[in-house]
């Protein structure tokens, strides 16, 4: 409460603390919304798989794409999230932050490119049943979000100069790590479902 009082009185330090708090709250709320977004896809996966309408969940010869390739995408996503997480912790110095955030950005771009390539070369047609539909839809929804997160990550990197917004607001910027970690965790669930459970 004292923080809010001082922030109101135009205390810069208190204002920064309030900024951090609000961004943190907003991040967790956004993640709550995103959990429900992906839960809808996971529901679709189990529902269509269980119904197997017209025996068309997977048509003859349709199966998951290469598990190894999927694992590469997943590892890249995890590496992106971990690199940013480690660099953005409040305990990490500015040097480490400036070192690891561009690394995370490169890894994030690679994740999107690899996932995009996989979607373009699935090995089955989108009209080949329920599983191809869920695979294409869930992977597309995931990579779109990961792409948007990577674009935001790019803006964090471009603002990481001596006078940039990122450095001025390091603590709020660290909340973004939870978005990347969440997307990476979602990627693990998706990988498990789409490549093994299916």
């Amino acid at each position, binding site marked *: *409460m004292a923080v*809010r*009082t001082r922030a*109101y*009185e135009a205390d*810069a330090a208190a*204002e*920064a603390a*309030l*900024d951090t*708090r*609000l961004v943190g*709250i*907003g991040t967790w*709320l*956004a993640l*709550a*919304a*995103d959990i*429900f*977004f*992906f*839960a*809808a*896809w996971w*529901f*679709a996966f189990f*529902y*269509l798989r269980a*119904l*197997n*309408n*017209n025996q*068309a969940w*997977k*048509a003859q010869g349709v199966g998951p794409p290469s598990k190894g390739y999927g694992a590469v995408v997943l590892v890249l996503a995890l590496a992106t999230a971990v690199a940013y997480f480690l660099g953005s912790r409040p305990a990490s110095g500015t040097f480490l932050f400036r070192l690891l955030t561009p690394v995370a950005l490169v890894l994030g771009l690679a994740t999107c490119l690899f996932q995009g390539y996989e979607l373009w070369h699935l090995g089955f047609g*989108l*009209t080949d*049943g*329920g*599983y191809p*539909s*869920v695979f*294409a*839809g869930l992977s*597309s*929804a995931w990579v779109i979000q990961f792409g948007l997160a990577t*674009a*935001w990550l790019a*803006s*964090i990197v*471009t*603002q990481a*100069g*001596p*006078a*940039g*917004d990122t450095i*001025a*607001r390091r603590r709020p910027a660290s909340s973004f790590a939870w978005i990347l970690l969440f997307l990476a965790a979602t990627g693990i669930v998706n990988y498990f479902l789409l490549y093994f459970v299916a």
Partner: protein
Amino acid sequence: MVVPEHVSERRLSIPNNAITGILLAIPGYFAGVWLGTLFGLNDDQNTGVILGYVFATVAFLAGVGFLNYPLERLFGWRVSPLTDPDENRGVGRFFRLSLDHKVIGLQYLVTILIMLLFGGIGAMMIRTSLLVPDSSITPSGNYISLIGLHSVMMIFITSAVIVGPFGNYLVPLMIGARRMAFPRLEALSFWVVPPAAVILAAATFWGGFPTGWTGYPPLSEQASQAMDSYIVGFALIAVALVTSAINMLATIIGLRAPGMTWTRLPIFVWGIFTTSILGLLAAPVLAAALFMLTLDRTTQTSFFLASNGGSNYLWENLFWFFGHPEVYIFILPAFGIIMEIVPHFARKPLWGYRTGVVGLFGVMLLSFFVWQHHLFVSGIAPVLRPFYMLSTELISIPTGIIFLVTLGTLWRARVWFTVPMLFCMGFLFNFLIGGVSGVYLSDVPTDVTLHGSYFSMAHFHYTIMGGEIFALMAAAYYWLPKMTGKMLSPTIGRIHFWWMFIAFNSTFFPLFIVGLLNMPRRVSSYDPALVGLNRWVTVSAYFLFGSMVLFAANLIYSWFFVARPALANPWHARSLEWQVPTPVPARNFERVPLVVAGPYDYGIPNARPVADLGGMVGATGGG
């Protein structure tokens, strides 16, 4: 915020306003259509139309100024600070990207009223068609398109009609904050609504869509490009719901003034809080379902195509997982309004404040466990029916609690029957009928009989129009003096109330009867024996529309012809929003208010003023 030195002062130089947005949206649409046609996997134009709408919306938002902030960040330029409200005066601010919650509230108000006009005209066209028992006035295909446009437009409106204008304007004032937590998100939640309405209206150019507001496949998969308007329009409303929810929740959690404890929070704010939780969690499911439908229509996937491994029940489950909480998104803020206004005019403390909050949370939680009652007649597994019947019936308990709190507040009170209070009374009467008829519909045998009839239609109009819109009117007469600085004419207001109340009941109560007599909804022809009742309803509906015209006339008359300035606190209310001057200062409070008492301590001897405002206006004591 610490603004660092030695950063680039470059800025995007496009003048940002709604006109620029419209000018950019037009080429944006054609660019999207061109790209979709170039890369679309089918030759049915759906990809092009959807991309056209998406590109047009993004271009519109760019023209309004929403891309400035992300692009400034991306290019490494100096990031624009949140707009200083002091620099943002004049009428032009309503046509620009404003980060002032008061401007956004008024932008919402005017936009929603315009949309309400179009939705209402649609309703009049529907009722006119039903003057005769055959399809001679409106052909069947056009009739179902009209139903679809009216229903979706009204759903768009009612999603935002309270949270948009009143939530945005009042929540910071009521909790003692100077701003919202995320003003850009707040503005975005507004600026996607006009494109959603325009895109929905564009469906008429494609002949309209045949699915009503529920968009059930396989009809929605086979429909013309008008269905793409439904998809993109609804997706934009989902964006509005989520962004608004994040902003509202973060504001209420993080920006309450010192002393504004959870138990002193005005009950209207609790209504917004619970509504926002619903919007936050339900709208993403709709977004996912719409994405699936988009893929089915553009890339020939088969999420909802049973012959190819999909299922139309998947859509029904996902849609109603959103759709039922959606109706509580309509009504929870209305409950908040009623419980907020009644104590002020009963001049008594809100009876059972904490119980009322529990009631709001009870409705909010249960609303996630009832969606399959919409599938009772769709062939769901019979074993699931009892659970969903009971969970739906259970919702009547927290709703009853909210009624009990309101009636307990009125008990032995010396009520001031002002215009807002009249609308609160109208709400209680109407919503009681709507709620009780809903209990019948939650019962499986009754629902199987009545689901496709006008009984169901009368039920939800009693809850939405008789409930939410009456609460909207109560809120308008109560808070518009603070928001606009002008008092509305109480004489016209009283005429408006009685006119609307009588016309509303005269319109919708007979529909219970025609429903019981098996008149099906969504069909333009009916048993000629019911023509008398239908003509009565149609004439009543015209009167109902007339009452809304009278409301609009009252606004125009009171704002432009009489212009009677509103006092800072014309109702002698205790809550915080009434303790600031009218018009509300740009930064709301000169210094942080220290809240020292609850907002409903009326009639309590030696009650403390609600807050220490540092001598701004002075808080009222117990009245």
